[in-house]
């Protein structure tokens, strides 16, 4: 199949970027989206041009490293997929694809389609952890947890931190990403020690990193590769309002 690509090229965070047109032919519908970009890069390299830089790692949909906004939708048109798991069969022969990086003020472009998502790490560092005893690995069944609670916590814990929610949000809010961790740990007994402080720490870090307010449009949950529930944001707001004005450590 044939595809026309309009790819965002930008030398660094300060440079002005623009969309550059590339034509690709003889593509297989079984190729993944990133393999298609590999083919393009091979052609560019053989011509001596600078290759298109993009983030990728595991290419099996579990690491959260791949990004890209394809025709206006984070991770492509399939919904609840990562870019690496999107295949060319999702597109029509001869289609024009608009490929842009994840955009947010807190996601500065490093080069081309690569963005710096460190701001998300700062939110997790602020409170996305638990206090536990050190030493030997504890006996797995020493803390009884109801099956439904374990399943529900795992739905939230499934977040791979790709940032598609932030890239999709019209306010560039990291609410879904942040709430996934808050809901995950609030549901489990291990998360109770810092339950009240965690949400305050993380929300403060979220605001300091320059993310916006959630306006509950629900667009984030529609693109999330791990289908993190939108209700986690409501859960986070509940946890925030539940925590006291000042919490002494």
């Amino acid at each position, binding site marked *: 199949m044939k595809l026309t690509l309009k790819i965002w090229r930008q030398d660094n965070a300060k440079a002005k970027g623009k969309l550059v047109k590339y034509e690709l032919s003889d593509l297989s519908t079984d190729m993944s989206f990133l393999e298609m970009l590999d083919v393009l890069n091979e052609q560019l390299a053989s011509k001596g041009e600078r290759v298109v830089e993009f983030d990728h790692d595991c290419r099996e949909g579990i690491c959260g490293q791949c990004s890209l906004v394809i025709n206006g939708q984070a991770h492509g048109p399939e919904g609840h997929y990562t870019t690496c798991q999107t295949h060319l069969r999702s597109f029509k022969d001869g289609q024009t694809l608009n490929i842009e990086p994840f955009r947010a*003020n807190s996601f500065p472009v490093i080069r081309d389609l690569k963005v710096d998502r460190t701001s998300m790490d700062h939110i997790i560092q602020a409170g996305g952890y638990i206090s536990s005893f050190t030493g030997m690995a504890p006996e797995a069944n020493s803390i009884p947890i109801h099956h439904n609670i374990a399943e529900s916590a795992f739905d939230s814990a499934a977040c791979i931190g790709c940032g598609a929610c932030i890239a999709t949000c019209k*306010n560039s809010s990291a609410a879904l990403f942040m709430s996934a961790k808050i809901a995950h740990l609030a549901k489990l007994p291990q998360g109770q020690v810092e339950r009240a402080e965690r949400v305050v720490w993380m929300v403060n870090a979220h605001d300091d990193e320059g993310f916006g307010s959630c306006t509950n449009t629900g667009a984030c949950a529609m693109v999330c590769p791990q289908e993190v529930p939108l209700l986690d944001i409501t859960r986070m707001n509940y946890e925030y309002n539940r925590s006291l004005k000042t919490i002494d450590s």
Partner: protein
Amino acid sequence: MAIKKGLFKTSIGRKNLMAFTGLFTSFFLIIHLIGNLILIIPDSYFPIEFWGNVASAHDMYNAYSHFLVHFWPISLVAWVLYAALIVHVIDAILITLNNNKAKGEKYKVTDNSTSTWYSRNMGILGTIIGLFIFIHMTQFWLQYKVLENEHDLYNLVVATFKEWWVLVIYEIGIIALGFHLVHGIESAHRSLGVYPKNAMGIVKYIALCFGIIMAVLYAIIPIILYFK
């Protein structure tokens, strides 16, 4: 130590304030609607008893509006309502400015299929409603309560709605209000973290019903008055 910042200062705090002021104003809409419905009671329905000797929609409406203006607890609630509306607007501007700052470079191509148009355009809908409220208040609140130019509010209302352009402005304002409510009521519950036994579906349904019922009932009143 974890310190919660003030309501105006965090992304969640600002949304909580939006939710509180918005929900309070929504309650007012119900009360306001009950008063408005007096306008469309047909005269054949009278005489019914309403605080003594009342024999027509005309008298009943005027008695009701006189009560609203001269009963002090209601005046007190009215001041809270004005404050709530002003805070709602200021807070909305603060949130929008902050969100615009958070946004990076604009996408060349956007796909909006993942959310509803009215949930994305609450600010525009709110601005339409704000302009509508301004017109609405200069027409009635200013004339009746502040300047006291007109003492027979029923006559003023009926005369005002005989103009076609008034009808058009009111219908536009009410349609904007309906969409604003459908998203606003659901969003307010989400922002406050209210999720009764994970029953967000019920909240969503209530928001939809509330928005539609309010919009339809408010919308028919000017139409009936225009053709009466």
